[in-house]
């Protein structure tokens, strides 16, 4: 992963070497932290579910920016059930965490705004790969022989997603970028299974649709620094 990131950063840097893109006062690289949020059910209660994203992007053409991002998405449910080898039944919490990253490209629509990136409105297209892990946890023991605080990994998948965002950003204090917009993302229903717990009765994939739903449409706001 590390070498992949290095490779991607190098590629972006090479792309921009010959780029005729001015950037904002010559600054073409942006490191940003973004928080995206949506309305979702968390443990059965309607609430704002937010997720963080960290990205590095660089202008490579007059209206085009490319970057890499990493994002963490979490969903949870208190309807988890787990059966151990002895078929002891246990109720607990299910937690699904998608951690992934990928590439994105941004295109500023200059003709509408007359602004060059990083200023102004843009479309952004994301291609991401996620490692989605579902875990069961309970603070009750199955029986007298097992300890409390069970934390069992039920499944691990590798899934891909495609996202499209419509956003706008502005610059304050010469180097600080504020970014906001809405994003739609489709997580592929087909994933590569990396790990499956042997117990087939557990609701190990219960949260996967929930994750897809939560990530389908989001509003986001971010802050970044120009380098």
């Amino acid at each position, binding site marked *: 992963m590390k070498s992949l990131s290095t490779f991607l950063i190098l590629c972006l840097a090479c792309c921009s070497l010959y780029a*005729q893109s*001015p950037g*904002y*006062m*010559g600054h073409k690289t942006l490191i940003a932290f973004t928080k995206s949020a949506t309305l979702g059910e968390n443990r059965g209660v309607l609430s704002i579910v937010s997720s963080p994203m960290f990205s590095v992007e660089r202008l490579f053409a*007059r*209206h085009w920016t490319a970057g890499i991002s990493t994002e963490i998405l979490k969903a949870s449910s208190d309807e988890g059930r787990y059966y151990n080898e002895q078929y002891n039944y246990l109720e607990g919490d299910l937690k699904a965490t998608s951690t992934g990253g990928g590439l994105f490209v941004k295109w500023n629509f*200059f*003709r509408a*705004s*007359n*602004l*060059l990136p990083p*200023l102004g409105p843009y479309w952004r297209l994301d291609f991401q790969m996620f490692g989605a892990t579902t875990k069961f946890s309970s603070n009750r023991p199955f029986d007298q022989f097992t300890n409390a605080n069970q934390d069992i990994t039920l499944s691990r998948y590798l899934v891909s997603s495609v996202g499209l965002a419509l956003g706008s950003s*502005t*610059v*304050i204090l010469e180097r600080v970028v504020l970014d906001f917009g809405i994003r739609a993302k489709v997580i592929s229903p087909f994933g590569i299974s990396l790990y499956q717990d042997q117990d087939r009765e557990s609701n190990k994939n219960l949260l996967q649709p929930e994750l897809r739903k939560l990530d389908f449409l989001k509003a986001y706001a971010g802050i970044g620094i120009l380098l």
Partner: protein
Amino acid sequence: MNLVHLQPHTSRQGPTFYPPKVLVKQLFLLMLCLVALAQAMQAQDYDHYVSLKCANPVPEELRTSSSSKYQAEIAKLGNNEDSKAQKEFLLQSNFVLDEMLLSGKVIFNDPVTEYVTRVKDVILASRPDLQKKVKIYVVKSPVVNAFATNSGALLVNMGLLAHLQNEAQLAFVLCHEIQHYIKKHPINGYVNASKLRKNFKSLGLKTQGDLLAERNKYSREQEQEADDLGYELYKASGYALSDAIGVFDVLGTAHLPYDQLPWNFDFFEFDFLRFPEYYHRTKLDSIDRHEEEADSLSTHPNIAKRRQSLIKKVAASGADKGETFLVGAGPFLEMRKMCRFELCDLFMGYHVYELSLYNALLLQAEEPQSPYLHKVIAQSIYGLASHKNMSKFWAIHLDAEEGEGELQQLLHFTERSNDDLFTMIALRHCWKTYLQYPEDQELKAIAEDMLYQFFDQHAETANWVERELPTAMPALVDSIMQVRKLGPQRADIVADSLAAIARAEEAKEQQAKADKEDDFDERGRKKKNAKVVNESVSKEHQKFAKDRLPWSKWAICDLFKEEKFLEAWERVRKSNKTKPSEAEGTDYYVLGGVNDPAEGVNLGIDKIVLLQPVYKRVDMLDKLPVKYLESEQGLDEFRDMVTDVAKRNKVETKFLETRNLKATDAEVINDVATMMQWVSEYVNAEGKVSMVNFKQDDANAMVKKYGTPYFGWNGVMQVRDKLSPEDKAGYLLLGIIVWPLLPVAIIGSQLPHNKTYCVSVVFDVQKGETLMEQTRIFRAKDRKRFVKSTLYDTFFQIKSKPKKKKKK
């Protein structure tokens, strides 16, 4: 000075010895001689007239910012019911006047201004306080006018000075304007207009027309007062009283050239070109002095009333003992001559080529051999022909029906001449002038461009000339001497006979060509159409020669005797009618062309001169739309931004602007004026008519002086205004589509909106090309980040090296 005093004391043995007193005197005399020599050197050379320019020192008021002057003036204002209107007036007048004074169209410390100032000093000899306060500025404008400002600056147009008949008339005009200043008419007029607007209903005014009539009535009273009190000042100044009345003759004919000159067709005619009656106006309208016009909606009483009032006063004053010239007749005539020469340039600047031509012809009576006037005439004819060829003639033409006097014949002639004919006339005249002054590069450019226009716009005629003239030339040259003996109809006779020769020769040539060709097809049968084709070509040619060029066909025939012309003719013909500027510079580097701001250009420029940056804030919803004070402050910030982004992009910049001037910066004002004139000529040419820029020589000098051919201009304007109906409809439509947002859309559609325009232009002055022209509009206030980002991009494009293209 007694020359004896200058004899040196000599000692018997030693070298010559000069006692200190004599040495001082000698030095003084030497200084006087040097000053006289310098003045003689400065005297205008009318053969190579150079337009008047500002000279050092720059007056104090031009070195002080408008806002400082405004603050100083409002500090003097007391608190009264009119103070708000007075402040408004002072704000506007200070900024508008400064803008004008620094535009380069107003000159100072030049011979004309110095002369007018001397007349002013004579008038105010008994009022030293006023002598200091009243400042004279001469405006480079052909309009017959003068006006006073609240600050004591009297602006006198060159158009007026060129029309005046004597010094006394100038003195009366100045007296009139000085009284406007003394009586504070400008500010009082504004306050009165403000009161009228405020009390519109209570004063019983019903329409805007009523308001205007009331305002102008007050203005007419002020003008009459200035005439009356001005006459008193004039009377005390020592000028001949009756001479003042002549001013109204000048004002009555202000719409005409300063003199009458019968239009002589000989100017264009020669042995092979005579204009038919159609071009001659049989009756010219007499000159209408425009004195009795209704003045109820005018700011001035009509001329007849003013004249009568003055005549009465002069009659009541008794004996007329004054002088017509107090400063001197010589200086007056010299000053007027300079102004008349300036008019040539001014009329050409406004593209009124008919008046610049007429004016130059008038001046030729005084300076018949002046190459400058020959050039102005060629430029004017070239300008008219170029506008005709680009179908823009009617935009610059003065209607012959509205003309009066002798000028009407010239206007009638230009109106009646079709594009074909006028181009040929212009071609001949420009080439004749160029051949007379072959070292003049501008004339060369004009002559060659005329040839390109001829080939480009009148290809059919050019082709005819191409076919006919070389064939006819030997006969033509031989017959010139005989032609002169033939009498009045000589041109037609010779032309017809030459055409016949040409036709016969062409037919012969065609026949010979046809004979040479294989007249038999591959089956051994003789081709049927060999001779028929020749006959049809000949018929077509004869028809064209008869219908299209009935009498003007030989209009340029004598040019074919000229080697330079023949060489140029060949070159243009072979170049496929493409101007060199259009063909060069684009084969290797991607350079030039007005760019699309979205894509940008790469100019690879290291050094650029930036002309007068502009920053304006305008609120269309306010009574005083231009926010002068904010604009002045904004300009400082804008200028800093430009400097910053240029530095970041490593572009060396030099501002050529009339801000923060020093006493020794008159040259800066002159340079700004020169470049602004070039830009004005260029922009006109780009937008309407492609022609040689008459200011190119001056611009080339600027290129040399500043060490770069690249000149740029940046400007920002923020406008606050109501939404346009289309934008309002857009808002409401959005509200209907996304219905929860409807209340926001309704409110939004009613609120004023801001737009910011960022404009950047880069010229290659030497090549006469626009390398960059971009306007970006933001639907927002002039936020620094937007302006900075745009400016940075502009300078980024300026600096970026052009991409190399593969050579074909």
